[in-house]
C-alpha cells in the first residue's frame, strides 16, 4: 500500500476541513495534496481516519474548492521538510516552508518530520548558562539562561517586538564565537511587523544567521498550525546536529491558538474554556517543550515566544496554559507603557524559573539572588504604598513608606527605563540595583546579608562623593 494514492471528489467541505470517503491505506497524521481544477495544489493533513472516511485539514483554506472536480493525493508520509545549514540560514520562507526570497527550494539536506519527538528527560542537560540580554529588568530580576523557554506576555499595541529585537541584538549568546542562529517564526503577523524584524536583523548584521518563516496576517489561518513546527524542526537540526546555539522567536502565539480553535470548532469537538479545545495544553506543550540542552551536545535551543493577552487578561487560557509550560514569563504592562517607560516590564508577575541556577558566584555575582529577592520584596511593598498613597495622600504616610515611594520612582526611572539601544552589562545592572535598595532604611532590607548591605552602602557613598 506504499506510494501515492489519488482520489477525485470531496464528500463534504466545512470551514478548513474536507471529508473524503472510500479511502484505503492511508495513515493518521499523513500529508495530503489537494489539487483543485485550477491546478494550484494545496496541502493538508489527516485529522482522523476510519475505514473509509478521512477528515483532512487544508492549510491554505478551502475557499474555491469544488466537490466533484477536486483531486486528492495521499502522499503516505507525515509532513516533512528538508533541513540543512547552508540552504536554510539567511533565507526567508512562507509559513509552510516554501521560499519567499526567490531562492531555490532546499533539497540537499535531511528530511525531517516537523512534529519532532519528545526529548527524553534523562537526556536533557539542566540549563544554567547565563545569557546577558543587556536589559536590567530581565538580567537582574528574571534572568534568561541558554535552553530556556521564556515567553513575553504582552498586549496589543505594547512594544513587545521592540523588546524581542533588542534581545536578539544584544544577547551575548549571539556575539560569542560559537555558532549561533536565529529562527524566526511568524504566525498571523502584519507585513510591516515582519519587515521591521527583518530590518532589525539586517541592521545588527545577523541576517545571514537568520531563517525566517512567515505566515502573515493575510495568509491562510490553518497554515499557522504548521509554521512554528517547521521553525522548531530547523532549530532542532541546527542545535542538535550542527552544534549551534539557536534562539527561536515565535510570534504571535495567540494567533496560533486561534487557528487551533478554528479547526477544532469545524470538527465539532467538545470545547473547553473559551471555546479552545481541551488539548490546547498538550498542543502548546508540543511546541514549547522543543527547547533545551542535551547532555554531550554542544548546541541549545532558547525559545522566546510572544503572545498578546486578549484584553490584557493574564488568566485567559492562552497566557495561562503557556505559563504552566514555559519556564517563567516576562509580562509587559500597559500602565507602565503609558507612563513612557521602556521596556514596560512589570517585574511582579514576571518570573524566570531557571534563574537561580544561572546566577551567582562564577556566573553573575555572588549576591545576585539576594539582591533580586530584596528588589522584588521592596517593589511589591512599594506598589502597596502607592495604592495607599492614592487613598490617604502622600503626606500622611509614615517616613519609611515615603522612602518606599522614592524607591518606586527610582526603580522605574533608573532601573526599568532604558533606551532601545542601551546595552547594560550585568555588573551595571547589579550596581543600579544595589544603589536602589540603599534608598531604604537598613532594617527594611531583610533579604540581604549584613555584608551585602555594607557593600552597597560603600558603593553608594562612593557614587555620592563623586
Amino acid at each position, binding site marked *: 500500500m506504499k506510494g501515492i494514492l489519488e482520489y477525485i471528489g470531496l464528500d463534504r467541505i466545512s470551514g478548513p476541513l474536507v471529508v473524503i470517503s472510500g479511502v484505503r491505506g492511508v495513515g493518521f497524521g499523513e500529508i495530503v495534496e489537494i489539487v483543485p481544477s485550477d491546478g494550484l495544489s494545496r496541502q493538508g493533513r489527516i485529522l482522523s481516519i*476510519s475505514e473509509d472516511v478521512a477528515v483532512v485539514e487544508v492549510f491554505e483554506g478551502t475557499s474555491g474548492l469544488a466537490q466533484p472536480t477536486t483531486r486528492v493525493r495521499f502522499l503516505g508520509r507525515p509532513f516533512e521538510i528538508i533541513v540543512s545549514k547552508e540552504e536554510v540560514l539567511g533565507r526567508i520562507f512562507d509559513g509552510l516552508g516554501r521560499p519567499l526570497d526567490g531562492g531555490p527550494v532546499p533539497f540537499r539536506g535531511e528530511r525531517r518530520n516537523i512534529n519532532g519527538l519528545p526529548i527524553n528527560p534523562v537526556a*536533557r542537560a539542566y540549563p544554567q548558562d547565563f545569557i546577558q540580554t543587556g536589559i536590567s529588568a530581565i538580567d537582574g530580576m528574571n534572568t534568561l539562561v541558554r535552553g530556556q523557554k521564556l515567553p513575553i506576555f504582552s498586549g496589543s499595541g505594547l512594544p513587545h517586538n521592540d523588546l524581542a529585537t533588542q534581545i536578539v541584538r544584544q544577547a551575548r549568546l549571539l556575539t560569542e564565537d560559537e555558532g549561533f542562529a536565529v529562527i524566526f517564526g511568524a504566525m498571523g503577523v502584519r507585513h510591516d511587523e515582519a519587515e521591521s524584524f527583518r530590518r532589525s536583523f539586517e541592521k545588527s548584521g545577523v541576517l545571514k544567521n537568520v531563517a525566517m518563516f512567515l505566515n502573515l496576517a493575510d495568509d491562510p489561518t490553518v497554515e499557522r498550525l504548521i509554521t512554528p513546527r517547521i521553525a522548531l524542526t530547523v532549530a532542532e537540526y541546527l542545535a542538535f546536529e550542527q552544534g549551534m546555539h539557536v534562539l527561536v522567536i515565535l510570534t504571535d502565539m495567540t494567533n496560533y491558538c486561534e487557528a487551533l480553535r478554528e479547526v477544532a470548532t469545524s470538527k465539532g469537538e467538545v470545547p473547553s474554556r473559551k471555546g479552545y479545545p481541551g488539548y490546547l495544553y498538550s498542543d502548546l506543550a508540543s511546541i514549547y517543550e522543543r527547547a533545551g540542552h542535551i547532555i554531550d551536545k554542544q548546541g541549545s535551543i532558547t525559545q522566546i515566544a510572544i503572545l498578546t493577552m486578549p484584553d490584557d487578561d493574564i488568566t485567559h487560557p492562552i497566557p495561562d496554559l503557556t*505559563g504552566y509550560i514555559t519556564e517563567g514569563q516576562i509580562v509587559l504592562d500597559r500602565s507602565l507603557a503609558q507612563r513612557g517607560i521602556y521596556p514596560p516590564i512589570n517585574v511582579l508577575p514576571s518570573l524566570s524559573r531557571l534563574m537561580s541556577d544561572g546566577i551567582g558566584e562564577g556566573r553573575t555575582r555572588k549576591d545576585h539572588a539576594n539582591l533580586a529577592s530584596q528588589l522584588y520584596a521592596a517593589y511589591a511593598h512599594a506598589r502597596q504604598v502607592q495604592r495607599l498613597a492614592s487613598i490617604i495622600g502622600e503626606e500622611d504616610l509614615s517616613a519609611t513608606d515615603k522612602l518606599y515611594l522614592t524607591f518606586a520612582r527610582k526603580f522605574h526611572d533608573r532601573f526599568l527605563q532604558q533606551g532601545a539601544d542601551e546595552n547594560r552589562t550585568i555588573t551595571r545592572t547589579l550596581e543600579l540595583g544595589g544603589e536602589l535598595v540603599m534608598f531604604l532604611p537598613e532594617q527594611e532590607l531583610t533579604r540581604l546579608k549584613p555584608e551585602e548591605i555594607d557593600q552597597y552602602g560603600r558603593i553608594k557613598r562612593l557614587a555620592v562623593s563623586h
Partner: protein
Amino acid sequence: MESTAQQPIVTMISGPVVKARPAHRFSMNEMVEVGDERLVGEIIDLDKDLATIQVYEDTTGLRPGADVYAKGLPLYVELGPGLMGEIFDGVQRPLEILRGKWGDFIRRGKTGTALPRDKVWQFTPSVRPGAMVLPGEILGELPESHLITHRIMVPPGVQGTLEHIVPKGDYTLDDVIAVIRSPSDKIHELKLFHRWPVRKIRPYRERLIPSEPLITGQRVIDTFFPLARGGTAGIPGGFGTGKTVAQHQLSKWADADIVVYIGCGERGNEMTGVLVDLPKLLDPRTQRPLIERTILIANTSDMPVAAREASIYTGVTIAEYYRDMGYDVALMADSTSRWAEALREISGRLEEMPAEEGFPAYLASRLAAFYERAGQVVSLSGKKGSVTLIGAVSPPGGDFSEPVTMHTKRFVQCFWALDKELASARYFPAINYLQSYSVYISAVEPWWTEKVGNTWRTLREKTINILQEDSRLQNIVKLLGEEALPDDQKRIIEGARLIKNDFLQQGALDPVDTYAGPEKQFLLLDVILHFIERLADVVKARIPLFRAMELPVVAEIHRLKFTQRGDDPGPFKSIKEQIDKEINALLHRQDSL
C-alpha cells in the same frame, strides 16, 4: 466475525483514540499492542462490535486495517528489585534504557521490560520449605540500594505450601526462587518480581487512623498545617506560585523511607532539575544520596497524553508495593491537573457528554479513588507501612473554584493554598496561612507534645491568633496607613511581620534554612513569641514601639533561621535571655527618665 480466531484490526484513528473490531476479542482495561510498531494501549470502552483503545504513544502513520494484539492482562506494572533510583515514563518504560537504545529522543514501540533481567540480586530466604505461606508473606530479602532492603513477598492471591525455596545466593529476575502448591493443588512458580494491575488497589490487612506527623522540614507545613503519615494533601497554586519548588522540597526532605515523584505533564527541564539535584543531596538522617530512596515517573508535557493519564496509577501502585514491605512512602504528583486534563482530552475524543468545564462527569470519582489509595495500614505481611499522597493542583488563572481544585479539596485532609501575591513578593513558600488548613492537628498533637515540647499546641495557637488579628488590622492599614494604629495594635503588626519573615518564610536555596527539623521549628517559634510577648511590656510602659524594634537582638532573631540547625537549644536560650536583658534595659531607662 463468526470465527473467534479472527484477528482484530484497527477501524478508526483520531489522535490517541483508536477503535478496533471485533470487540469480543478484548476485555475491559485489557492491555493491547497496536500495529506493526506494537504501540502500547489499553481497552477503555467495549461497544457491540467496536472496542475503543487509548494508545499510550503517538499514532501518526497508523492505518485502518492494522492488526491489534490482545495481551490478556490489564495495564500492569512490574514490581520487584530494580525500581529504586530509576526513572520511568507513565507506563513504566525505563527512560535510561530507552536512551541507551534510541538516543536522546523518545521513539515509540516496544521497549523490552521495565525491570532489568540481567541484574543479579543477592537474595536471602527467611522461610523454610514445607511452611504454609499466605498472600503478602515475606519469603526473604535482598539489598536493593544502600538505604532500602527489598522484601520479597508472596503475591496477593497466592497461598499454599512452600514446596521449594532457593538457598541464599545470587539470582536474576527470571530465576524461579520459590514454588508454592496451593490448596487446590495448583503450582505457583515465584520469581523476584510479580505483575500488578495499576488501576487496582493492593490489598492490606487493616487500615489505621493516621496519628504520626510526616515531618517535611518546612516550618509552615509542620507547625501550622501538618501532614500525617498515610494522609493526603493538595497544593493548589497558579503558575509561578512555587508549586513545583514546594513539591521538590517535600520530595527532598519529607521524613519518609521512600519517595515516589511523578512529573505528570510537567516541564522537561524541571524533571532534569530533579534528576540533577537528587543524587547530590544527602538524606539528613542517613547521609546517603536521596536518589537511593527515590523512584521517578516522568511523563513531561510533550510526551503522549494517554500515558500521562496512566502515570499517577503507575506511581501509586509502586508506592503501595513498598508500603506492603513495611515502608513509609510519600508520593508527590505534580500535577494532578495535568492528569485531569488528560482525562478530559481523551473523554473529548470519545465524544462523551462533558460536565463542568468540559471535564468528564467521572472526574470527581476518579480523584476520590486516587486519594483513597493513601493510608497507613497493617499490610498482609503484618508490617506497618503507609502511603502519603501529595497532589499539586494547577488551577487555570489561579482560580480555586475550578473543578479540579474544588474536588481535590473534598478528598484531601491538608490543603496548602499557594498565593500569587506572596509569590510576586518572592515570599516563599507562598502558602497562604489564612486559606490553608489541616485536619491532622489534633492527631499529631500528642507526638509533638511528647517528642518536642509540651507547649506546642499553645504556641501554635498564639501564633495563629496573631496572624489572624494581623490580617484584620491590615484591612485598616490599607485604608489609613500603619501610623494610624495605636501601639498595642502596632505590636500585632510588628509581631506578625516577625513571624512571617523569620519563621514562615523559608529559603529553599539556603543550605541551612532549606530544612528545619521539629526541634528547630519549636525553638525558633518560641523565641519569636517570647519577643512579641515582651513587646507588650514595652507598649504598657508607653515606650514607642519602634525603639524596641531597633534593639540589636532583633537582628539576632532575623539571623537565627540561617545560622542554627536546632540540634543545640543553647543559642535559642541565650537569645531569649538577650531579649529579656535588652527589653528590661529599655524599660529601666524609661523608668529612670
